[in-house]
């Protein structure tokens, strides 16, 4: 299940080419993207509890499975 979610989140972040860094903490994924315009915020919101965007830093609120999803996304990069 986390695999599927990781794929959906990565696609909404603009794909592997747009992601500079992904870090999981207990509540959220903290990601840095190259081009924020490529981020599909509506799609991210469908895969999460919420999204916070500030410049190139995108936080995706996924809850305690954040670590697992971050690892899965790292595998896809």
């Amino acid at each position, binding site marked *: 299940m986390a695999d599927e979610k990781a794929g959906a989140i990565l696609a909404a972040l603009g794909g592997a080419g747009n992601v500079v860094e992904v870090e999981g*903490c207990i509540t959220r994924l903290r990601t840095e993207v190259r081009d924020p315009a490529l981020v599909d915020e509506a799609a991210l919101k469908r895969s999460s509890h919420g999204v916070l965007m500030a410049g190139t830093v995108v936080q995706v609120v996924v*809850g305690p499975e954040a670590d697992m999803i971050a690892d899965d996304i790292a595998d896809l990069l």
Partner: protein
Amino acid sequence: MTVQVAAPLAGRAVPLADVPDAVFAEQMLGSGVAIEPAAGSVTAVAPVAGNLAKVHPHAYVVIEPSGAGVLVHLGIDTVGLGDAAFTVHVSEGDDVAAGAPVVTMDVDAVRARGLSAICPVVLMESGPDGTRDHASGDVRPGDPLFSWEA
């Protein structure tokens, strides 16, 4: 059945809306109450009996017998501090009694870095305003903090 969550640490109970992080203030992960600790250091305990599904230096989740998870988050943006501010007393996967010590936080070390030491306590997946009987003002560990209908 009403499930009671106890305060995991001493401090001043305040609404989640006062937490300087939108994830908690807007109840994206769920409803609950935050506790602002006094100066010095503070030991955070299990707010309910259950299994420690997640243990990080700066946060932990206890799954209580009904299957609900209670998240205790120690300070805001503290994920990078690790050993500099936190001492973990348990292991992920442990079963704990309510009141069992989990993590000690050096409150002064957190604040010295310009970070907030406020500790949101959240019932995961409860939705906005999904908990009730919210405490306010000074609380001691074990005092009632909030409850919900399981």
